[in-house]
């Protein structure tokens, strides 16, 4: 059987989560490997969530927020961008494939962009194969 990656998404309520809803309302199709956690703002995301997601066996982690400048809370995603940039550097220097972690700004109106990003990211992660480096071995 083909490798089907597990992708964990964390999206902000106001832009990316709403954008994902729009993708649904417009009946766009994209792969179902993504499971999303909703938070109020991308600035709520603690980099440790990302490390944890990989430990829980995520093959890829996708973060979605409002476009910088459009944050519902004004400046949240400006901080989030710096934090997630460092998160990416940490994962990369630890030796994880950089392609497994992505941050995308997707507004509430960009349903098709959401579908595109998920499609593209899923394919990319599929290409990287199963993530075994951080995954905690668990015989469940």
């Amino acid at each position, binding site marked *: 059987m083909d490798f089907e990656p597990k992708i964990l998404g964390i999206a902000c309520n106001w832009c990316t989560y709403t954008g994902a809803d729009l993708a649904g309302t417009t009946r766009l199709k994209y792969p179902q490997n993504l499971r999303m956690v909703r938070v109020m703002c991308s600035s709520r995301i603690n980099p440790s969530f990302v490390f944890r997601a990989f430990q*829980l066996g995520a093959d890829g982690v996708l973060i979605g927020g409002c476009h910088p400048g459009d944050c519902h809370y004004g400046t949240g995603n400006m901080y989030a961008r710096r934090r997630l940039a460092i998160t990416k550097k940490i994962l990369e220097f630890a030796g994880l494939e950089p392609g497994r972690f992505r941050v995308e700004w997707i507004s509430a109106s960009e349903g098709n962009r959401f579908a595109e990003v998920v499609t593209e990211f899923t394919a990319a992660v599929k290409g990287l194969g199963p993530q075994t480096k951080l995954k*905690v071995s*668990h*015989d*469940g």
Partner: protein
Amino acid sequence: MLKKIEQGKLSELVTALIDQGPLYAPVRDDRGVNFQSIRSPLAVTLDFYNSVLSPKAVFFPQSEDLISYRLGRGEPTAKTTPLPTAQTILLGVRPPDAYSFFLMDELFLGSGIVDPYWQSRRDLTVVIGYPFINQTPDAVDFYSSLGISATDTRGSDIFLIKKNGELLFKGLTEKGNALLAKQAALFTEATGDDEQYYLAALAQGAAIVTRNLDCDPKRTASKLENLFADTAFWEQMAAACISCGTCTFVCPTCHCFDIADENIFRDGARRRFWDACMFTDFTLEASGHNPRSRVYQRLRQKVCHKYSYYIRNFGVISCVGCGRCTRSCPVNIDIFTIIAEAMKK
């Protein structure tokens, strides 16, 4: 029983011992020597002074599962982790470390409550001691102060001594002799010359003297009891202490542990693992109160536990003078100096 083997055939012996059960022996890497579970005979080294970490983990692993459980979908299940059953060999233990096993027996076996994990591993393990012979003691060692000699046999089942290209194995206990008998095919019988050599080596080793200090257990215990409330003294001793757990983790006699349930996807284990009295949260109470919130209180606890409370409980000092805590301390705190200062008071 005294047996011998050519040093070149050590790897053959090690291979045979691995077949017999788990073997722990000193292994050198770029950061020094430590006891490790041996898979390849070539990894073993006998060319070392002492290991960075004490070999206590063989009996008291840093982390072990007591119970494992599954609480996911369906019926929950839990099972107790079976106690080890395989005979284990611990090769190359320096006499102070071997003696530390004795000291720990007091707590894990002799205090009225028997720790089955400790007991089973102690029963199953043959300790091959490796006395210090012809070795200048490290500047920070002070085992002589504690009445431990460089060739102390306490805690060892077999003694291993090098003799110009040969290795002499002296059975000291029944368990030790049984092991030597079992591997008889690999050994040659020792000669009278070897016996002479062995005794001479022991005598030579016994003459080694480390840093020395008179610390009679009873006197030390009461000294420290009297000093307990001398905050200024302890604050001075702990002025540099950063309150990390390094000293307790490298120590052969520190034995504090914590127990926690840890799981992922609802499956997990109840584990026990090393804890350290030097950690801030060691004594943190649920109320938020911490009876040992200050660094000096924690350092005092560590020193007094070894040199006072343990004596009151078991009649012995729970320190073997191996010098590891001093060698590993990031700020060079020296327990020998602390005791020396205390005794001056």
